[in-house]
Each structure stands twice: as C-alpha cells, then as structure tokens.
C-alpha cells in the first residue's frame, strides 16, 4: 500500500532478511541504591528480526520497563547498564557516543509509554510535539513535518487532524493521546517500536482500538514491535513470539501460541492459570489456581532457581541456578524439570471444553441460584446523581455532570452482582451513592427496606455497619500512620462491636486469620505490606463490623494477576463462609464473569443490560455489551487469530451534554430514528434478562 504517511517510498526494513534488527546479549542493568544493589535486569538475551512482533510479559517489578528503557539508555541515575550488549542495526547502543545515541532515539528506535496522560507535555500543542520529533532528525523541514504530522494523526484514527494538531494534550482523552504517542513513535519510520504497557491505562474498548492499530502499523510500516504487557491476552492478540520475565531474568521464550497452549516454565504456567477466561466458564469451578508467596527480594536474590520459593514443581536440583536452554525447536526455558523433559499439567482453564459449558448454562448460575437467593437486600429506584461543574467565568451558566441518570437495580441476599462499563460511566459514583458517601440527586435507595437516599448521617450510621466498601487503591485507603491493629480496631470500637480491649484484640486476631495474614501483622504499618496484602487488610477492615453487604470498587485492578487470583479466591471463600452479598465493580470482564451471579452493564450513567453472568456473556442482547465482550483480548493465540473482532469506534460522549434518547446511539451501528427521540426502557426481554434497547439482539 502506497501510504501518504510514508516519508520515502523505499522499504524501511533495510536489514538483510534473517539478521536481527535488535540483538540483546546478556544485558544487565543494576540500581545502586542506599540499601544495596538491585539487579533489576540480570543478564537477558533476546533478538528481534526485522518486522517481528515480540511480547515481553511478567509481573510488576520483574524488570520489563527497565529492560526496555535500557535499550535506548533512558535509565536515570541510580541505575546503570553494567554489562552486556545491545546490538541495534549492527552497532552496540551501550558504547555509542551521546551524539550517535540521539540519532537512534526517536529515529531508529521509538518508544510509547504506559501512561498517555503524562507522556505529552501539557503546555505545548500537539503540532509542536510531533513536528520537533521529525525535525530533530533532520529529514524534514518544519512545514513538511507539519503536513506529515496531520497525515499521521489521520492515519492513527484521529478525526479532523488539521484541527487536532492545534489542540493541547488536556483537550484529548487517554485513547487519543495514545494515538498521538503512536503517531510520534511512527513519525520517523523507526525500525523498532517499543511499547511499554501502551494500553494498561485505557478501557478495553479503547485498548482494542489501539492494539488493532499497532498490528496494522506493524504490517504497513514493517516496523518491528516489542510489546510489553502484564496481560497475556494483549500479547496474544499482537505478538508472534513472547519472552517471559521473572525477577530480572528471562525464564521462558518461544512462539506465543505454543507458550500459551503448553507453557514449559512453572511461572508461565502459573500466570496462565491465574487469569479467568472470558470465553469459557467452567461451571462449579470458582477458585482460581494460584501460587503462594511473592517474587524474591531483589536486594537478596536466591542462589538457586529464583522461582523456587513459589514453585509447585520444585525438586532438589532447584537449589542450583538453571540456565535458559533450548528445550524444543524455537523454545527455551529456565527450569530443571522441563529441561529434563518433564511435563507440567495442562492449564486448568483449557480443561472444561467451552461447548460443554455452554450446554449446561444453568448448573451454577441458572434458576437454581435464583431460587437459592434470599430476600431483597438493596433496591435502587431511578437513582440520579448530577454534580455541578465549577464555573469557568463569573457569570457563566451552571453546567452539570450527568454521572447517574435513573438507575434501578435490585440486589438479593447472598448474590454477587458485577458492575461493568468504560471508565467515567458512573460505576464509582453509583457505588458511592449506595454507600451514601454521595447523596443522590433523585430516586430512592432502599437498604434492608429502609430508604437511605436522603437519610441523615445519624440515621445511616447503624446501617453502615452492615454495608462496607473496599477500594481499588488499598494504600490510599489505609491510614499510613496507624498500625494494622489500630486500623482494624477503629471500626470495632466506633460501631461498638466489641466492648473491651480484650474482645477487640481477639476480634483483630480472628480477622487477620480470616484474610490469611500472620498475627504479627497487627503491630506493623501499611507500607510494610505488598499490594495484595494491603488489599487483604482492607478486606479485613470491611469485615470487622460483620457486614452482610460489601461494595468492592475495582478491588483487584491495581494488582498482578496471581495476586488478583488470590484476592478473588479469598472473596469467594469469605462469601461462602459468611453469606456475604457483593457488588463487584471491575473493568476486567473476564474476572467479572468469573465471580458474578448477575452482571449489570452501565453506559453514561444508565443501565444497558442486566442478566445472569453466563447468559450475558454467551448471548449479549445489547449492542454495547457485544462490543465490550468482543474487545477483551483472549490469552489463546489460536482463539485470537480465529476471532472476528467487533471494533467499537469512538469514545463515550460527554457526561455534561449527554445525547438525547438512547445514550449509546452516537456509537451504535443499528441506531434508528426512534433511538434519538425515545430513551429505551430497561425491559425484561427474556426471563431475568433486562435490556435497554429498542432493537434487542438485532445486532
């Protein structure tokens, strides 16, 4: 394709076929901290042929970002590259002079970073930031660069690029900023693009758009891509080969589809097992497979296999450090067991065939659970919440954010209701209205039969004991100056759950035990714990007053997959043990499917669809739900390749000025005239399946 966005008509992939464009040999990047040497990247080797797509996967702290930054020597002070070679285009980046290095930065290698919100300079307009990238490499003049910038923005899917170049970053959403970053990355037609978690900060729908774009760009520009992600699904949808990192080392390498189907390192095996799959649900199997423990202390790496402390397949030999060796053609692993030809049991998630699961949809979630469900615990009726926007001018008109626009929902005793939707659609606001952190603008909130919508704090207080919240960021919600014992003791005393110090201490001990923390945790402070442990503390605090209803707002979003699985298992156990009712908010649809009995889909503050989880995921009736499900990448290369993805275009409209009629109509492919005039009611289209659409199931 002769694309307008090309600088030269000559093929950019100049390197001879076969010869790698990037060849990393035994790269070591260490941090010289006051506490000692952190070996963040500890001897990694891999190579990338021209035009290839390589994925790098691993949990946070495994060294992915430092390894990526090292490739362009972008690491900051306490960190230093202490050994190895980075051969790019035949030259060792480690040894280049500053001047030569600058030519490679942004020229031969480009990089896209995780957080598009902070990656663009807020005080410079888009044009300036794009143009300087091209002009500094001397291939274009300012005018040519501006012209090309406009074309590139158009190519990246930004509407009206001539106007967009004059905008400032704050006028763009996260997805659009990431498109600008990609335009910047591709502007000099680099031979290699490194993308470090480029979609982690984005919604699934926007993530799907960006990943699609990356695949296209790889195809059209022949640019090799190194994609870093903690999400195996993301890797599977883009990369042909994958490298797995653990504790600064590569532990496995091979073709994506082979690794996902048949991992040969226990850590990869654990990663794959820890994530629930959106495309299958094995009835009755709620607990996820997890591994214990945390990665080793980087200041104090074990001498033997670094994964040994958490490895379920450990043998005696594992006290020696294994090398990364070829175990099959094109596949390498750093594990004594698989190197000796040993097998790892097939991943749990591939056991129950999906067809089987579909054939018996009712076993777990169907009518049985509906009958099992107890009385109504929470009833929302036409709940509305609007926030006044701060006025920009002295005499301007008051504007309102329409966060929640008439939500009705029942939650029964003992069930788990999942709440999904793109960010900003009002999930957190709804949770806060239910918990009466916000007072609703209109509507009623009945909790155990009592309307708390406009109740005073004094009236809410006894009910608050029965309803507790768990938040996304466990660190922000725990007072750093209080010990865990005090954090847990405070609500006990406040709500007079315990009557003397001895009782309080006993209850704290019991709570720590329930959430799987050691007794000595009570005397320590939040910062001494890992993210997962802190979320256990938050859960313990929520449980301390013996609530029957827990609202969990993105409780696992900030955690690594294995820790996510541990927390999900804990929540499932606690529910069975104490008969809890959950409102579970998450943007990870696979997790929501896994844990929920029923799922509510929210868009622009309105309910789009409510259905039992399996029904919703198997037969979504609302166009928006179909798009959402389709956007989720699946960690199975074969499924990914065969899948027809529905690309949802655009982004949600403004909540200040929402569309008339159906809120989804601006992005709906089957919208008709009536959709702009009449807001479709939430109707029970099939038993227990509610949809707000004039044409349910017709898309």
């Amino acid at each position, binding site marked *: 394709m002769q694309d307008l966005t090309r600088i030269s008509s000559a093929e950019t992939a100049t390197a001879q076929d076969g010869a790698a464009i990037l060849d990393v040999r035994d790269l070591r990047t260490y941090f010289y901290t006051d506490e000692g040497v952190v070996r963040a990247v500890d001897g990694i080797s891999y190579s990338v042929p021209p035009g290839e797509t390589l994925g790098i996967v691993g949990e946070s702290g495994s060294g992915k970002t430092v390894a990526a930054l090292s490739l*362009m020597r*972008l690491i*900051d002070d306490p960190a230093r590259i202490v050994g190895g070679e980075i051969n790019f285009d035949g030259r060792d980046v480690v040894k280049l002079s500053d001047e030569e290095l*600058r*030519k*490679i*930065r*942004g*020229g031969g290698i*480009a*990089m896209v*970073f995780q*957080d598009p919100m*902070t*990656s*663009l*300079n*807020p*005080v*410079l*307009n888009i044009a300036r930031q794009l143009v*300087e*990238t091209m002009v*500094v*490499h001397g291939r274009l003049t300012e005018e040519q660069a501006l012209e090309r910038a406009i074309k590139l923005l158009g190519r990246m899917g930004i509407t009206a690029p001539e106007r967009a170049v004059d905008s*400032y970053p*704050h006028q763009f959403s996260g997805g659009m900023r990431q498109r600008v*970053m990609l335009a*910047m990355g591709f502007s000099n037609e680099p031979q290699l693009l490194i993308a470090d978690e480029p979609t982690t900060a984005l919604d699934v729908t926007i993530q799907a758009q960006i990943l699609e774009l990356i695949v296209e760009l790889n195809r059209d520009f022949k640019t090799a891509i190194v994609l870093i992600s903690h999400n195996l699904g993301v890797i599977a949808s883009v990369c042909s080969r994958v490298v797995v990192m653990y504790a600064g080392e590569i532990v496995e390498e091979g073709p994506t589809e082979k690794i996902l189907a048949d991992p040969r390192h226990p850590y990869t095996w654990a990663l794959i097992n820890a994530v629930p799959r959106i495309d299958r649900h094995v009835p009755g199997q709620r607990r996820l497979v997890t591994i214990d423990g945390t990665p080793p202390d980087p200041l104090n790496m074990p001498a033997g296999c670094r994964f040994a402390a958490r490895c379920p397949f450990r043998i005696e030999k594992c006290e020696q450090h294994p090398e990364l060796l070829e175990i099959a053609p094109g596949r390498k692993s750093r594990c004594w067991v698989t190197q000796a030809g040993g097998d790892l049991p097939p991943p749990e998630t591939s056991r129950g065939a999906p067809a089987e699961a579909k054939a018996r949809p009712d076993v777990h979630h169907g009518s049985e659970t509906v009958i099992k469900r107890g009385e109504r615990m929470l009833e929302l009726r036409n709940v509305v919440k609007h926030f006044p926007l701060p006025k*920009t*001018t*002295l005499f301007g008109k008051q504007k309102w954010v329409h966060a929640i626009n008439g939500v009705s929902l029942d939650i029964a005793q003992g069930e788990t209701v999942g709440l999904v939707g793109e960010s900003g659609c009002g999930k957190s606001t709804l949770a806060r209205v239910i918990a009466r952190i916000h007072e609703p603008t209109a509507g009623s909130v009945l909790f155990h039969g009592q309307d708390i919508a406009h109740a005073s704090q004094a009236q809410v207080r006894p009910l608050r004991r029965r309803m507790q919240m768990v938040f996304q960021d466990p660190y922000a919600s725990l007072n750093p100056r209080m010990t865990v014992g005090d954090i847990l003791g405070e609500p006990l005393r406040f709500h007079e759950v315990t009557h003397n110090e001895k009782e309080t201490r006993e209850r704290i001990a019991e709570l720590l035990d329930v959430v799987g923390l050691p007794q000595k945790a009570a005397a320590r402070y939040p910062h001494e714990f890992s993210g997962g442990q802190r979320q256990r503390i938050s859960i313990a605090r929520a449980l301390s007053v013996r609530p029957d209803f827990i609202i969990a707002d993105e409780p696992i979003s900030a955690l690594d997959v294995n820790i996510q699985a541990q927390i999900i298992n804990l929540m499932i156990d606690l529910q069975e043990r104490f008969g809890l009712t959950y409102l579970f908010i998450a943007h990870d649809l696979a997790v929501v499917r896994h844990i929920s009995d029923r799922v509510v889909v929210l868009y622009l503050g309105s309910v789009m669809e409510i259905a039992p989880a399996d029904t919703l995921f198997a037969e979504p009736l609302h166009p928006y739900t179909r798009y959402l499900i389709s956007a989720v990448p699946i960690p199975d290369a074969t499924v990914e390749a065969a899948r027809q993805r529905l690309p949802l275009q655009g982004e949600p409209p403004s909540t200040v000025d929402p569309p008339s009629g159906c809120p989804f109509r601006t992005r709906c492919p089957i919208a008709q005239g009536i959709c702009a005039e009449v807001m479709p009611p939430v109707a029970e289209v099939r038993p227990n399946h509610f949809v707000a659409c004039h044409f349910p199931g017709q898309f």
Partner: protein
Amino acid sequence: MPRYIVSRLGLAVVMAILATLVIFLIANTVPGDPALSQLGDLAASNPEFLKAFRAKWALDEPLWTRYFIFLKELAHGDLGISIASQRPVLDDIKNYAPATIELATVGFLLSAIIGVPLGVIAAVRRDSWIDHVARFLSLIGVSSPTFWLAFIVLAIFYGELQIAPGPGRLDPIAFAPTNVTGLFLIDSILAGDWDTFRDALAHLILPSTVLAAATLGLITRTTRASVLECMHQDYVRVARAKGLTEGKIVMRHILPNALIPVVTLGGLAYANLLAGAVMTETIFSWPGLGRYTFRSAAALDFPAIMGITLVVAVTYLIINLLVDISYALLDPRVIR
C-alpha cells in the same frame, strides 16, 4: 483568551471596589470625629475649614451616601489633602511613586534575570559547584536583614572602595531630567541626556541590589525546585526518547512548565518590593513611597495613609491580573 481576560478584569474591578469600601469604612468608623482625624488638629481648629469639610463630604448624611460621594471624588482623583504637607494626597503620591517604581522594577528585573537562569542551572547541574554557589547566595539573600545588607554595601562600595555613588537618586549637584514619566532612566533617555542616565543607573545599583537580594534567593530556590520536579516528568523522558538535545529539552519542555509556580512567586515578590521598600529607601535617602508611608504613619497623616493603602491595593490587583494573564500564556489548561 479574550473571554478569560475580560472575566479576570471584571474580577479585579470588583475587588478594587471592595477595597475602596473597606478603606472608606475604616476611615469612617474610627472612633471620634472623622473631620478631626482627616483634617488634623490645626485645620480643624479653624471653624470655616471645618464647615466646608463637613459640607463637602456630607458628614451629616448616612454612611452609604457618604460612600458614593467618596467614590465620586475618587473618580476625579481626589484623595483628600495631606495633613503633613497640606497638598493633595494624589500629588504627593505622583511625586513619590516613580522613584519607588523605578527602584522596585530594577530590583525585580535583577532578581528575575539572575535568579531564573541560576535556578535552572543549579537544577540541571545538581550537586555541582554552581549548585552549591547558588544555594549559598540564596541563603545569604534570604537570611540577611535588609538594613544590615544596606549598611554593609554602602560601607564597602561607597565608603571603602568608593566605586559606587552615595545615597539619593542622582548626584547632589545634578539636575533631574525633564519630568515625563518620573522614572529617571526613561526620562533621561527621552531627553537624550546620557550623563544623567549613567548617573541615575549608577545610583540605582546598590539599593536595587539590596532590594533584589531576598527576592533573588526566593526565585532561585523556587526555580530550582520546580525544574527538578519537572525533570522527572514522563514527558521529559518522552522528549529524550525522541532524540532531542539536552538544551532543547530544558528550554522547550522543562522550562515552560517549571516557570508556572515561579510566576506566582514573582508577582507576589514584585508587589512586595513596590509596597515594602521602607528600609532600603530610608537608608539610601530614596525619595519614594516607602519613605512617604513611613512619614505619614509617624505623623498620623490619615488622608495620606488612606491614599497609600488604596494605591497599594490597586497595585496588588494589577499585578495579580498580570500574573493570571501570564498563567494563561504559559499553561493552556488555565483557559478551558
């Protein structure tokens, strides 16, 4: 942008009217007869004067009528008669203000022109000798008392070394340039009188340095801290990954962001220099507002104090407006 400026301007006008109200209320609610405090003992002893005064300000009318009369007179530039000088307060202020404006502006420019680059270099070359020098200079500037610094520089450069001229705006034997703006530097240029220009400039060096010292320290430290913070932002790493030179990264990506807090500080500091140069002006015999304020306060010259307060309030408002406008120029997020 125009809408933003208009709305800021509107706000400034509202604030200015509020300021007149406050000043009016203070003047008219002081215990005792306002006529007495406004006229001074001498004039008040003359019954003719007293009668005319009471009639002009309608002292027998209710408070709000008097406020409107006050506003009307203000609009005509009538700030009352100074008790001490027996001249219109506005004329007095017109007399003294240019000296202060000239001194404060030169002092401020000095601290900004040196302070900002010094702060930037100190941040970019962190922990190098220049950073240590900058830190030492700032410390001295911020921590030395003004009167002490003023005496020291006078003693050294004028008394000992005799390389700087003594107190005053000009040599005692020199004539002031034809009054256009009252700022000697500008008036002498307008008159093409280069000798006077040099003389005025030489006389400005010591007092403006003394005045700049504290501000320089503040600006240097704030710039340094702000640049250091911006240096670790993601967009700076992105700029580096584009292959930009370090110079471009600092000038184009770091500085505009880092200047945002410096502008706030600079505005405040400039206003303070304009309003609070009493000590420096006294020691350097500088015929400015600071000395006028001091004298008026010592003489309990009520109309003069009111006039000065009003001028200071309006100055703050104008500078605030300028700061708001520079914000909008520096940071596109300000205008939504």
